[in-house]
């Protein structure tokens, strides 16, 4: 597929797919030469082209350097739509609405935990519900569940899972406005009842990491990060509730697209006009999913805090676990951008992409407004993560967005096949990473070779001036479903 698509190099870090056929705008892929050849191995470039066909798309169909073949939108895809002529696409948000990352810092150093990491990992694995269809300790009754869907992370704080200051550094304060539980199906509500405070399966994880390297002292200090400090990264989303909201609306929009004559190169791109009852209903339901995910990550942070305090015999003050930032990477948001000299509100879809607003932007938490928004980029299992900071160029070129991870290069089946006979957890242990996972299959699927090199992906963002490197985090322990 990809070989038929014309791709031209714009500069060291960007590729252009010129407008052709039914494309309404060109495509731009952030990739240097280390990454470019990977585009030939899957259909992600074709998916960038498909997104460019959607009504009301503004400027270009974008892909971040972690781009890989998804369904409908590529993973790593960013696209903005005009509010009056454009569309919203549930597939452009993804099934896991507000899948995202939460980074917590502690007062501990590598020295404080290095002999206790086994105990800590085991305690985390026992205390934090993981795995397929895992259910949590919280059972939501009807009224409470609706509150979660409307209030997001604040519901968790009010109910004792954290402190109000956690909200200050959560994207959008941990709540998306416009959530209407009446727009969420009974099926989705049912699936959400028992999954709050659970990690789930697949590529979701909780990782204990330490700050290995600081690239920018000033910004790292603003984020409260220093060398050898112990931090925790959580990656999960809205669980079954979010999956069901996407599934419900996608099916309705497949029908709707046919009725309204929206031409789709792929049914998974099914969408509705933003300025239509169906489009508005989806946004109201999506906000419920986003709020559930924020509450979920807040509860998980609280459980993590409890495990650290109990296992390491520390008081809350001694542990000092605080939220560095919580960012979502599967979402559609109404945000304002300058398009050819005019400020316009647009609906930005980030499908496996992270918001990356620069210093001074009013959506950046007050505490970080002088330096810019933290951009959290987890690597794959056990390899650690990067913390970056949003830069002004992101507003000009990528609708304030950056990459969200390393990006797969190997299918899960290939990965499991090529990991056969190997003990991935032992290989990790040899590198000093303790891993506890629900199944061997999951470990094989997520083995390091299945992903692009995180360094390559991060470097493209850094050199393009979209987001700047702040710190590199290295994994010590990882729990997975």
């Amino acid at each position, binding site marked *: 597929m990809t070989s038929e698509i014309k791709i031209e190099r714009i500069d060291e870090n960007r590729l252009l797919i010129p407008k052709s056929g039914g494309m309404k705008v060109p495509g731009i892929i952030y990739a240097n030469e280390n990454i470019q050849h990977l585009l030939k*191995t*899957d259909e*992600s470039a074709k998916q960038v082209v498909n997104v460019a066909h959607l009504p009301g798309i503004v400027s270009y169909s974008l892909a971040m350097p972690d781009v*890989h*073949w*998804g*369904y*409908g939108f590529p*993973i790593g895809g960013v696209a903005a739509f005009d509010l009056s002529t454009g569309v919203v696409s549930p*597939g452009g948000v993804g*099934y*896991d609405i507000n899948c995202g990352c939460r980074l917590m810092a502690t007062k501990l150093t590598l020295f404080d935990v290095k002999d206790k990491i086994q105990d800590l990992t085991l305690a985390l694995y026992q205390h934090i519900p993981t*795995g*397929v*269809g895992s259910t949590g300790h919280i059972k939501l009754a009807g009224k409470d569940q609706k509150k979660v869907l409307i209030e997001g992370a604040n519901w968790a704080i009010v109910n004792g899972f954290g402190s109000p200051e956690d909200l200050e550094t959560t994207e959008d304060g941990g709540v998306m406005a416009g959530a209407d539980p009446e727009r969420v199906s009974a*099926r989705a509500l*049912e*699936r959400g009842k028992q999954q709050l405070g659970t990690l*789930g*399966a*697949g590529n979701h994880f909780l990782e204990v990491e330490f700050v290995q390297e600081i690239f920018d002292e000033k910004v790292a200090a603003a984020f409260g990060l220093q060398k050898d400090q112990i931090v925790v990264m959580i990656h999960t989303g809205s669980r*079954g509730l979010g*999956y*069901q909201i*996407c*599934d419900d609306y*996608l*099916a309705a929009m*497949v*029908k709707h697209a*046919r009725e309204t004559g929206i031409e789709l190169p*792929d*049914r*998974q791109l*099914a969408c509705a006009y933003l300025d239509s009852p169906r489009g508005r209903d989806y946004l109201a339901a999506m906000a419920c999913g986003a709020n559930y995910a924020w509450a979920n990550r807040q509860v998980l942070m609280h459980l993590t805090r409890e495990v650290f305090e109990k296992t390491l015999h520390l008081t809350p003050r001694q542990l000092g676990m605080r939220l560095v930032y919580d960012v979502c990477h599967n979402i559609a948001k109404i945000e304002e951008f300058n398009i050819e000299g005019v400020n316009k509100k647009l609906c930005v879809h980030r499908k496996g992409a992270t918001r990356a607003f620069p210093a001074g932007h009013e959506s950046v938490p007050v505490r970080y407004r002088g330096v810019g928004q933290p951009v959290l980029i987890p690597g794959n299992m056990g390899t650690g993560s990067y913390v970056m900071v949003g830069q002004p160029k992101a507003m000009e070129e990528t609708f304030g967005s950056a990459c969200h991870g390393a990006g*797969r*290069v*190997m*299918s*899960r*089946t*290939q990965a*499991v*096949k090529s990991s056969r006979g190997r003990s991935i957890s032992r290989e990790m242990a040899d590198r000093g990473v303790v891993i506890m996972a*629900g*199944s061997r*299959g999951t470990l*094989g699927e997520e083995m390091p070779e299945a992903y692009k090199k995180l360094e390559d992906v991060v470097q493209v963002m850094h050199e393009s001036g979209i987001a700047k490197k702040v710190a590199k985090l290295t994994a010590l322990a990882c729990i997975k*479903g």
Partner: protein
Amino acid sequence: MCDAHIDLEMKKYKLIDHTADIGCEIFGKTKKELFANSVVALFELMLGRRTFSETNETTELETKSLTVEGIDLEDLFINFLREILYLFNGEGWVVVDCQPLQVTNKHIVAQLTGEPYIGTRHQMKMEIKAVTYHGLSVKKTKTGWVGRVIYDI
């Protein structure tokens, strides 16, 4: 992961590579068989082979009738799989047998036999979040029918 070589011999389905998710090609001599085999494939992916070949004698099997509509055959195929997946993800019900009674391009009526999911008996292999429309096709071939679907995992 899913003993694809055995599945190939049985010609019920085979796995196809997809970078982030998992693809499946399902075969059937007739449309009815295609739909029945799509249920086999889905549960074998999630729970492994055992659940379909061995029903546990200590469980009371229940039956359910399922009716699904679609705007065309491909839409019907996806809607059918979405309903089957919901029975598992939403209601914790493992389908151990599916008998399609009536299949047109826009409508299916099937008789399902199943049992409640019990963690100690059914070992989960893989979470399937959703049935996607991406790369979807249902085609008639010389020997029967082939359906192609990508699951979000």
